[in-house]
């Protein structure tokens, strides 16, 4: 409890600096390059086109799902993956990236994952606007189900910010952990049903296990808004499992924080 109080207190006290650091992080990521901001879009566009091509003409499948062409079905889940993959790897590396905040001045370490998350969220929001635009120009107009987008976004932010706190603390202790996360990320991508429809899995057991994966929950959630037209409370069992996983993640993050916060400056 004391740890939660410390972390929340630090966020309140340093709120304006957190915002500025988030802003600086976005600017820094893209301003050095000649093409600047367009890089935020180039990567998703290239990846989506390549995967769409591979899945439509190369691998089997790629048939329309729920009456939506495969590429339209793919996009909402894929876009959420960009935020999630960034948070998995860069989130884990954020304390190392902002080493100077830890070792050279007094700064609350717990807020580093937060502003990192905010910076990635800004890019995510821009990409989401483009997704909405794509759906509108292909004749799929907004309906009431779109209203739950912020809900899934919130779930995603909560889980991955907690993850980033946990992982960045461990990664600060040891590069091995960071390397482990980086090598597992690609596996998570293929296991989480970003590229394929998890509803097509026949085995109920495997379906059930899949719901313990927050990446799956978020990607499917985004598709619930755009494709499947399902409310989140209609899948209460999935929500319950996600909440449990989220709570476990938060507890892990708090445990890591409490255990490691005083050692981090000594080892970086």
């Amino acid at each position, binding site marked *: 409890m004391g740890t939660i109080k410390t972390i929340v207190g630090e966020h309140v006290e340093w709120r304006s600096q957190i915002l500025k650091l988030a802003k600086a992080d976005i600017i820094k990521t893209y301003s*050095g390059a000649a093409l600047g901001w367009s890089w935020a879009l180039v990567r998703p566009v290239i990846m989506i086109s390549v995967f769409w091509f591979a899945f439509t003409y190369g691998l089997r499948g790629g048939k329309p799902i729920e009456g939506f062409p495969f590429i339209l079905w793919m996009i909402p889940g894929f876009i959420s993956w960009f935020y999630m993959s960034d948070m998995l790897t860069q989130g884990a590396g954020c304390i190392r990236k902002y080493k100077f905040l830890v070792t050279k001045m007094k700064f609350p370490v717990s807020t580093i994952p937060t502003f990192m998350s905010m910076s990635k969220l800004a890019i995510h929001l821009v990409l989401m606007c483009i997704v909405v635009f794509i759906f509108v120009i292909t004749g799929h107009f907004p309906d009431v189900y779109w209203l739950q987008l912020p809900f899934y976004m919130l779930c995603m932010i909560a889980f991955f910010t907690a993850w980033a706190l946990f992982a960045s603390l461990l990664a600060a*202790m040891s590069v091995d952990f960071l390397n482990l996360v980086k090598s597992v990320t690609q596996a998570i991508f293929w296991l989480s049903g970003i590229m394929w429809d998890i509803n097509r899995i026949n085995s109920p057991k495997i379906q059930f296990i899949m719901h313990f994966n927050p990446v799956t929950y978020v990607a499917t959630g985004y598709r619930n808004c755009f494709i499947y037209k399902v409310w989140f409370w209609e899948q209460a069992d999935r929500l319950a499992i996600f909440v449990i996983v989220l709570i476990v993640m938060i507890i892990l993050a708090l445990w890591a924080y409490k255990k490691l916060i005083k050692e981090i400056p000594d080892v970086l």
Partner: protein
Amino acid sequence: MDSNKVVIEFKNVTKRYKLYKNDKQRLFAVFSKRVKYKEKLAVNDVSFQIRQGESVAFLGKNGAGKSTILKMMTEVAFPTSGEIMIDGRVSALLELSSGFDMEMTGRDNIYLKGQLYGLKNSEIAELEDTIVEFAELDEYIDQPVRTYSSGMRARLGFAVSINIRPEILIVDEALSVGDKEFRKKCRQKVNEIIEKNNVTLVFVTHSISMAKEFCKRGIVMKKGKLVYDSDINDAIKFYDPPKTAKK
């Protein structure tokens, strides 16, 4: 003005570093208590008080624990046991060439640092020209810090730290930056803010002449222990007996 207020207080402060064989061992140690490590006692039961407006030099050989003490003063590192009380805005210049975001320009870094020290943008804008001029960076100020030479980084670091109106200034070796002219300017500026603004200065150096110039009090450290604490001239005599003393 109450110039007798205690601004820094260390009470029986001890700092132990845990040394593991490698990174992997350190990661395992997070989960298991059985991983073996060596302990290094960097600071051993140190107590002292520093009052507002004092200028204190920490003298000692490499590994005596001076830098660890400065880090704890900056609240960057935490003591293993003991208490530390700090009262006032601390501006620290630890290790010359770091403390900046390498990808950002010098100017952005000035703003970032200012914001992190809790200044408003309007206040930083007021100080901006002074800092740029002081650091002698001219057009380089709008280049990313990673392109700077170590001297340039140190000058910028010094210019920022000293100009953001600190109440406690902590300096680690940094005054030996740049050429003669710049050093002279630094010295003047440090002396100026000590006298005018009643700033407290804590200074770590190997250079005895520099310690003598800035500080009135000297603390000598040896192997993590505080072995001498008195007037600067006596401290220097204790640390470096006259036979071998420079200057």
